[in-house]
């Protein structure tokens, strides 16, 4: 192995080390999504109907963890491993973006490619991005507090950037998926679709 190859290998290992929390989040989401796709509608594949329902419900609810809330762990974990802020930002957005890609691929079975790509910008993706930003803000604040010492005064760990992320993220999620079931973003999203694809 040359020095260059060894260096590249070390760099890859280092990147994987930094990104590991995000990779865990994305992988967890994908596995749960696959379980749902493979087993939804097949109670006969389980030991009982109750077992089927328990498994499916757990898969749906647990899938929301990495999709919406993993930022609370991914951000501080990546920061603790030495990742730069922009790397952490990529890390917290990775799972919603994976969700967007999966959604777009699924939609491609039913819609032309450009429409499927537009589908990947749907309000649930937007809501997940907002939730990730908000939870990352919470995670960042807690992590900074922890580093500064739990008894240290707020001026030592307070971050207005994190607070802005929390507020902006929560607002985004609220508008995208909570407020009246998300229809205030859903209908504009459909209007844009119509203007782009339906004349």
């Amino acid at each position, binding site marked *: 192995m040359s020095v260059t190859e060894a260096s590249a290998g070390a760099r890859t290992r280092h990147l994987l080390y930094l990104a590991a929390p995000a990779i865990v989040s994305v992988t967890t989401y994908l596995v749960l999504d696959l379980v749902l796709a493979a087993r939804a509608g097949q109670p006969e594949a389980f030991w009982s109907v109750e077992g089927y329902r328990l498994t499916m419900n757990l898969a749906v609810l647990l899938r929301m963890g990495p999709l919406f809330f993993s930022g609370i762990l991914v951000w501080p974990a990546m920061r603790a491993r030495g990742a730069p802020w922009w790397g952490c930002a990529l890390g917290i957005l990775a799972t919603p973006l994976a969700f967007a890609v999966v959604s777009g691929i*699924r939609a491609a079975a*039913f819609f032309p490619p450009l429409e499927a790509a537009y589908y990947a910008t749907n309000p649930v993706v937007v809501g997940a991005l907002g939730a990730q930003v908000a939870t990352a803000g919470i995670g960042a604040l807690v992590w900074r507090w922890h580093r500064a010492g739990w008894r240290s005064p707020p001026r030592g760990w307070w971050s207005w950037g994190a607070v802005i992320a929390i507020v902006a993220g929560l607002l985004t999620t609220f508008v995208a998926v909570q407020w009246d079931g998300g229809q205030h973003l859903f209908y504009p999203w459909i209007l844009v679709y119509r203007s782009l694809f339906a004349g």
Partner: protein
Amino acid sequence: MEVTRRQVLGGLAGGAAVAGLSACGTSASVGGRPIPVAVDPALSSSVASRPNLVVILSDDHRADHLGATGSVPFLQTPALDSLARQGLTFDHAYCTTALCSPSRASFITGQYANRHGVTNNISAWRAETVSVFEGLAAAGYRNAYIGKWHMPGALPDLRGVERFVTFTVEEGQGVYVDCPLIIDGVETARPGTYISTDLTDFALEWLATQDPAQPFCLFLAHKAVHHEFEPPPDLRGTYDDVPLDELPDEYFTYQTLIDRNVWEGTAGRLETAYRRYCETLLGLDREIGRLVDALDASGAGANTAVFYTSDNGYSWGEHVLTGKRWAYDDNIRLPFIVRWPDGIPDPGATRPQPILNIDVAPTLLELAGAPIPSSVQGASLVPLLEDDEAAWREEIFYEYFADFPYNIPPSQAIRTDAQLYVEYERGLPPELYDLATDPRQLRNVAEDPAYAEVRSDLALRLADLRARYA
């Protein structure tokens, strides 16, 4: 709907400047005006002997959710059950497209979606489309359209009606509480109202103005029982504690959050949404009872043909679906009752023939003595009202068009009394269900060699139907 809140507000501003503000609302040019149609003397000479017509169209009411069917043990629909006892029940009624806008357009045109052009919740109602009200008005009927219009495009002025009460909020879906209405083209706030009650009040108010010497047609299109499944306040919680044993094995509580259901507006616990759905239906039933009672009290009930049906069905967990659009029975079957004391010889009977939403318009026209335009693709139900062995179609043609963002491919299907066969335009393989052994349509036998001949035959018949209707 392309009438946006901004357009409405803009119209309001202009309208207010010209006409001023009324006590209960504001005027605006938002469409929705009734347009008179000239009476044809040749058609209207015998109109006084014709029956009154009332069509009550609900939304997303699946066929087996009637108290009388016993399919849902706790569900009470006394008014609809009474209608069924006094009239006919068509227990194989279907929509031609299981989606609100196309089906609504089919009801009032008698045409498949591919012909009237409202193929999904995006493609607009064409201003030149002829509705059943034009023919009825020409025959001397006084007509009213009250309720949910919900067809894409700007709200049209409606030819042939003298009263047009509807709504455009939430893309034409309306809201259950305080729903602003467009009353003969004037947007009007309705604070303190519940939509099913408010629409029924408008219907009763209009019926009270009718002249007994001239027949009428009331088309009352409810928002209920579409989501957000908001029952009247006094009925909310009625079914909180009943067991939900009728829900299928394959459903699970949070299936509302998976990709195929996420746009159906039911996010959250399926059981909770389902209980609210049933309570909303209970509230709708109460309003239907109020309307029919008023008709009877006025003396008009005996010679009034009352039709009750829905735009499409609804899945509550079947195939892990929450919603409609698919060709499965849960989605395409409609409740369908006709009560006409003076015209139906065997009240309480059931008709097994497969009827369609597109059959309603020609039925109304025939009952009114009006000609049925050649553009109509449905068949009049009048022969079946009078004779349970009248010659009738043996199979139905179903079509569904792409409707972004719903992940359901365009499809066409044929349903006979023995099989359902579906062909998808893309994304999914053909499906064939043997209804004798698999009435819930869970086991696709399209690739089963034992069904090769059946599939081949159905594919040919579907192609023939496609050639005739699409």
